């Protein structure tokens, strides 16, 4: 029954999207309200979770804070709407939220069919493998013959099959219905390998009896580019959302961070001067003030700082930069220039 209703809902979403023309004035209504309404997940370690004080923190959350800071000079000028997976697109479509920053994979059908505009990729995720260190495995290609714990009925399971077949390796799947069961099975040593999205592996690792005895292998066998999205049809808002993300990455490329950004307004480097608003009218062109990027960086930090603070090696999650490093450091984070 729930499934039928859900698919009916999905159909209605698709229809509704076709008919609905998003109003073009998101920025105006945001400024009128005095806050950005931001859709986040109902709890995902390091991406959107609440801390002891009850404040939302995380990578997805910080993007919204940066967006709010760029507009209002105040990272608190944002209200978070926790959304379940089924609700998220409707919430964006119906105007309940202004931006969706909820570990959402950028796919073609979502970008076109569902009427979203993806802003960029704030986290390159992908399916990975976790193994006990005592196996002394350093690459997924050494996993031939291993028994692999995996959740049933997910794309994870399909990716796993494809990967092992493509590499001519045998494996022995240990399949469970629920996430908790998979965790318990791996914890009890019923399988050698645990596979799911790498960000998920990082938080599952923390729930094991001895997190330090386990490692996540470097290979990612699927592409899960996660990023924020906005409604189609409001180019100005899309531009703002997109360039706030680019500004955060540019800032890291140019060595601008939350500590030194104020001094950087005096910088000689024209790239930095344009970014922090000392030169040009880039902010005004998107409907904001010229120091929009400065405000975002000042309050929230550059992309690197956001990453390190929420999921990086210094946090309990200990996720390496990997693909999320700047292109200059072997990753694929690359910002279009502010020029």
């Amino acid at each position, binding site marked *: 029954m729930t499934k039928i209703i859900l698919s009916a*809902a999905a159909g209605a979403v698709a229809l509704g999207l076709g008919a609905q023309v998003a109003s073009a004035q998101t920025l105006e209504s945001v400024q009128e309200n005095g806050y950005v309404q931001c859709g986040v997940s109902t709890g995902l370690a*390091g991406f959107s979770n609440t801390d002891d004080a009850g404040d939302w923190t995380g990578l997805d959350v910080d993007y919204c804070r940066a967006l709010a800071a760029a507009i209002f000079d105040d990272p608190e000028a944002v209200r978070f709407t926790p959304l379940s997976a089924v*609700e998220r697109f409707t919430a964006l479509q119906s105007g*309940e939220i202004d931006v969706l920053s909820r570990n959402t994979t950028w796919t073609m059908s979502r970008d076109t069919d569902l009427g979203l505009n993806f802003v960029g990729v704030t986290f390159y995720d992908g399916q990975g493998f976790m193994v006990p260190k005592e196996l002394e495995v350093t690459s997924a290609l050494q996993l031939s013959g291993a028994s692999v714990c995996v959740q049933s009925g997910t794309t994870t399971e399909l990716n796993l099959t494809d990967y092992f077949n493509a590499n001519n390796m045998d494996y022995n799947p240990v399949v469970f219905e629920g996430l908790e069961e998979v965790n318990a099975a791996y914890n009890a040593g019923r399988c050698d390998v645990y596979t799911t999205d790498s960000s998920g592996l990082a938080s599952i690792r923390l729930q094991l009896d001895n997190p330090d005895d386990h490692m996540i292998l470097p290979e990612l066998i699927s592409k899960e580019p996660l990023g924020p999205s906005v409604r189609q049809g409001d180019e100005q808002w899309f531009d703002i959302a997109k360039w706030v993300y680019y500004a955060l990455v540019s800032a890291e490329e140019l060595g601008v961070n939350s500590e030194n950004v104020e001094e950087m307004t005096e910088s000689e480097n024209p790239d930095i001067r344009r970014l922090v608003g000392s030169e040009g009218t880039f902010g005004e062109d998107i409907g904001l003030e010229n120091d929009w990027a400065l405000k975002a960086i000042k309050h929230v930090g550059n992309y690197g700082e956001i990453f390190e603070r929420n999921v990086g090696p210094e946090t309990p999650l200990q996720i390496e930069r990997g693909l999320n490093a700047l292109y200059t450091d072997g990753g694929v984070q690359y910002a279009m220039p502010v020029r």
Partner: protein
Amino acid sequence: MSDTHSEADLATTKLAFVRDDFIEQQEAPTREGGIGQWIRVNLFASVPDTILTVVMILFLAWILPPLLNWAFFNAVWDGANREACLGEDRGACWAFVEAKFAQFMYGRYPLGERWRVDLTGILLIAGTIPMLIPRVPFKRLNAIFLLIVFPVVAYVLLVGGYFGLPVVVTDRWGGLLVTLVVAIVGIVVSLPLGVILALGRRSRLPFVKYASIVFIEFWRGVPLITILFMSSVMLPLFLPEGVSFDKLLRALVGVAFFASAYMAEVIRGGLQAIPKGQYEAADAMGLGFWQKMRLIILPQALTMVIPGIVNTFIGLFKDTSLVLIIGLFDLLGIVQLGFTDPNWSSPQTAVTGFAFAALVYFIFCFGMSKYSIYMENRLDTSHR
């Protein structure tokens, strides 16, 4: 025959059931009591009893020590983050519950405004307790306070926007606050609405009757989870863009209607159990419909279905945790949200959180259950 039987007469008639000698005098029974007696009578009275007792003792011996070790002796009582709860034989991570306790109670309700929630809670308790104790007088005033004054005051206090109280958006509500708001609104709305629907369903007026039937069957025929999904996923699509109702309000309406439909059927059961004579007697006395219901039928019908009503209440109380799927954090939801804080991720975090949530739910449900039994006994004017 003479008026009295002589002893000889009795002896000669040989009535088999007449005792003709005394029982030999026996010693007075030893006065038994105390623990030994209780154990023998209650635990080892017969062979099957003894077997059951032994099995249960073995079971407890098997389950209790690890449970107590986990919950108390090996438990971590304080700590600042996950480090405290890591380690080979650590038990429950109560430090996690301690750190997040305020969140579990208030959700993300702003720190400086939490006194408003406290005050609402105190008013609720102050209004409810005298209501629940039959001896306390002024029931009518009390009911007016609880049903009319309190909801208005609670709304003003919790939502704000009047008398200089800042508005607290419902996005920030959570934890036990949301659980209680949803459950209490559900309970308070569903009982009167259920009575009206139950009466409506038995009405002779076709419009009233079929409207009630459609309402009841519609809400009863759809799972609560679907109603919540509809309210949060479908409803916004039908509304013009930019118009949106408060999420909590949508959930409240959904839960209240859902519970009303169930309540209506429970009460209808009670109405049907009242003998026809009662209705006719009331009619014969010249009572109008509402008088008849208020004075004769409903007091009997409602008393009879107290277990069913409380059943619905308890079910409703536990169903509130479903609001998590539309992104509202009730008690269980906020506990689960706490698990995702990487600073507290440990093997014991989830188990401890669930144990805490279970304990809170149990306290409330058990309380309701006990009170209903007390009320049943008190109101038992006996059809037995």
